[in-house]
Every structure is written in structure tokens, then in C-alpha cells.
């Protein structure tokens, strides 16, 4: 408990203290100045998009990994953990190498908002897949077969039988992906260029010795993360890594 306070609580308390130690109006100006607002907007939009795309594609990948059979499946399955194992800065550099200047496939996304989305999808890929996969494995196929024998179409079965069972897992995976995206910096630091996202703005504020502004923006992000945490507990998903 003491360990926890020294390492985690005291530093975080310092950020909160710094954030609220100013007058409300100066807090308001540092959060609502055009740069901060724009950064928060881009960060939020990118995180929501990441959560949505990640939820859909993660479910597809999980479905293929559980229900489909093809050679190399075990390799693909192991590959899913790669974004957790790979240092995020390496992830950023790999995307820069493929989609940046001198791209071998001729796609130039570096230093745009699109690459931010790609990077976030990269680092958050395992969340939805690894949360949906075990549920799908244990899902009773008999209910689906019964529905099919009663004449339900595939779309109906998916909507009425499969999706309700998967929904908590998809939601908790997407919430984790969202929370991770809001604060992500490692994979983005090399590739954002002039796109301002919240974590980069905080970093720049710290570097230019403006801790007050940094703390204000941090406070907004912390509140956002806590909201996600509460939401996640509601959904009842276990918090994985």
C-alpha cells in the first residue's frame, strides 16, 4: 500500500493539485484555447474511431481464429499478441517505414491524421480480439443450430443469438482500446508530424516549461479515463492488460 502510494498516488495527486491550484478561469483558458481544444477533438475522434473499427475488425479476426480452420492459424494467433510485445516506438517506426516517405508500396500516410488511426489500431488490436476470443470459444453452438433449424437467416442468427452473447466482451475490449488511444504517445511520437494530439501537446508543454497548462490538459484526460473505467465496471468486463 505504501509502495503504491509512493509510486502511483503521490505523483498523480501532484498533477491534480497542479491542475486545480489555479483559478477556474485560467484552467478554463488553458483547456479551451484553440490548440488544446483542437488537440482534444482530434484525440477524441481518433479514439472513438479506433474503438469502433477495432470492435468490428477485432470481432471478425476473433471469429476467423475460432470458427475457421486454415493452415498457419496458430501462427496468426500468436501474431495477435505482437502489439503487446513490440515496443510502441518500434510500432511507430514500422508504420513510418511502410507508409512514410519512400514507402515501398507507394502509400503516403505519414504525418497525417490517417496514420494516427492506423497506429492506434495497431497498438490496440489485441484488446478486442483477446476479449472476444474466449467467449466465442465457449459459446454454445446448439443455440445457433436451433435458430437455423427454425428457419432463421444467418444475419438474424448473428444479430439475435451470437451478438448478444459477445456484446459485453466486445464493449469491454473496445473500452480498453479507447482508453489506451486517449493517452497513447509511444507509437505516435515519430509519425504525427504536425498533427496535434493531446498527449503530444502535454509533452510539448512540459518541454517548454509550462507545467500548469500540461497539468490542466492532463486533468481532462484523467477524468476521461476514469469515466471509461467506471463504464467498464458497469459492463462488467474484467480489466485485462
Amino acid at each position, binding site marked *: 500500500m505504501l509502495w503504491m502510494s509512493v509510486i*502511483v498516488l503521490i505523483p498523480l495527486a501532484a498533477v491534480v493539485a497542479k491542475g486545480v491550484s489555479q483559478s477556474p478561469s485560467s484552467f478554463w483558458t488553458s483547456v479551451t484555447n484553440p490548440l488544446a481544444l483542437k488537440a482534444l477533438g482530434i484525440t477524441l475522434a481518433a479514439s472513438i474511431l479506433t474503438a469502433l473499427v477495432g470492435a468490428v475488425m477485432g470481432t471478425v479476426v476473433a471469429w476467423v481464429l475460432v470458427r475457421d480452420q486454415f493452415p498457419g492459424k496458430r501462427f496468426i494467433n500468436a501474431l495477435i499478441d505482437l502489439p*503487446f510485445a513490440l515496443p510502441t516506438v518500434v510500432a511507430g517506426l514500422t508504420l513510418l517505414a511502410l507508409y512514410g516517405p519512400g514507402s515501398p508500396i507507394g502509400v503516403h500516410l505519414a504525418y497525417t491524421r490517417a496514420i494516427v488511426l492506423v497506429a492506434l489500431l495497431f497498438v490496440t488490436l489485441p484488446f478486442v480480439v483477446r476479449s472476444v476470443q474466449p467467449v466465442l470459444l465457449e459459446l454454445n453452438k446448439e443455440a445457433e443450430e436451433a435458430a437455423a433449424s427454425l428457419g432463421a437467416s444467418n444475419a438474424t442468427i448473428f444479430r439475435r443469438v451470437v451478438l448478444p452473447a459477445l456484446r459485453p466482451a466486445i464493449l469491454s475490449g473496445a473500452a480498453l482500446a479507447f482508453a489506451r488511444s486517449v493517452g497513447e504517445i509511444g507509437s505516435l511520437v515519430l509519425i504525427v508530424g504536425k498533427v496535434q494530439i493531446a498527449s503530444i501537446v502535454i509533452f510539448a508543454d512540459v518541454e517548454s516549461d509550462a507545467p500548469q497548462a500540461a497539468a490542466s490538459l492532463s486533468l481532462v484526460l484523467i477524468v476521461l479515463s476514469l469515466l471509461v473505467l467506471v463504464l467498464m465496471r458497469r459492463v462488467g468486463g474484467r480489466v485485462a492488460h
Partner: protein
Amino acid sequence: MLISRRARWSLRGVALVYLLLLLLLPVAVVFVKTFEHGFSVAWAWVTTPAAISALWLSLLMALIAVPLNTIFGIGAAIVLVRRRGRLAALLDVMIDLPFLVSPVIVGLALTLVYGETGWFGSWFSSHGIRIIFAVPGMVLATIFVSLPFVVREVAPVLVEIGDEQEQAAATLGASSWQTFWRVTLPSIRWGVAYGVILSTARALGEIGAVLVVSSLVAGQTLTLPLLVYQRDSQIGSGSITGAYAAATELAVISLVVLLAMTLFAPRRQETK
């Protein structure tokens, strides 16, 4: 669902192409770019004094952070699972904070506490101890971001095994220390191992929090991920090849970690 052949193939195609574009291709390109000027050039980049000291510093940070987090993690997991009450509930919420708070904010937080003008910073600097922009601050940042892994892996295993065996050991006269070493630890060892692997991976690869509290001086406060960052932002003289080389070095380390994860994962399922 009875999926038609065509739907099955197209789903498989969508999933595989997505993974190919997102994961496999980028990583492959970095390997290719590392060696495009030959193996010796890449080797020269990873054996410069700066690169070697960066590797040692990264390993040192993992070596300090991981054992501390393992001891704390096992202790915290036991408190979380075996003791009910307000303290455990509070701990449960706080454990996840390092996952939810952005690494940059972690760096900012440490600066505010241990920096020159921070809460404890003046005391440390008057005693001639530098924490921020030095190795101690980077170690603190690393411990912070890799804190929850062991707890989150061990806690579910503890729930699963229950406490009958521990109670039996206690009735037979074992001290709580003996019970821990002979009964509890052997049954949670795969959970611990998996947590240790995850925190090692994070400790070796962390950049966000460390970036804020490092002075980026080669040979002193430059870890491998920071070296990648620094070489990428340098212009000219082929330093981008150096960045790719350092990235490949990190990627090789993380492939070993990934392999270990895959090896431990099935055993973890058994104990669950």
C-alpha cells in the same frame, strides 16, 4: 451459424489482409530497411558506444523494475483476493490507474513531485541527488507503467485455486510464511511467470513516460526506445538506418518475449 463457403472465405480474407497490412507488412519492411545497406552497416549501428550503453540501461531498468513489481504484485494480489473490505476495494481501483493514465501524464507527474521545483525535488537537489532527467526518475517511470501486470495475472489464479489448501496447511501447523512458499506460490507460478513476461516487455519498450523524464544524453539517460526516437529525429548521415537497426534489435528482443508468451499461455489456461 452455417456459413456458406463464400462467406467463410471472404471473412478469412478480410481478417488476414487486415492483419497483413496492419502488423506483418510494417514489421517486415523494418527488417528489410535495416539490412538494405548490408548486415555490417546495421551491425555497426547497434554496436556504437551509445547503442551498447542504451541496451545496458534498458536491461538495467527492467532488472530493477520487474523484481520490485513482482514482489509488490504478488502481495497486492493476495490482499485483493484474500482480504475483503474497503482497503482491498480501494486497491482494486488504484491498480488499474497506470493502465488508464497516459504515459506522458506519468512523466509530468514525476516531474511535478521530484523535479527541481517539485514537492520533494528541493530536498533531493539540496542533497545532491538528481531524479528527473536522470536514471532514478526513469526507473520510477518504468516501475509506474509496468506496475499492474503481475497483479492482474496473479489475482484471477488466486480466485480460481481458492483457499482450502492454505487453510489445510494452516490447520496442520504451517506458519503463514511456510504456507506461502509451499502452497500458494507453487500454484500461482504460471500466473506470476506470465505477469513477469508482460512487465518485462513493457519495461524494455516504454518510451512515453521515460521520454519526459530523460535528458536524452547518449551514454547516460538513453534507453533503446529513446535511441530509436533520437536517431529518427536526427537528419542526414544515414541515421535513419541506425534507427531501423535499433528498432530491429528491440523487435528481436520482443520476439523472444512473444515466444515466451505463447509458450506460457496454454499452461496459464490449465491453472485457470
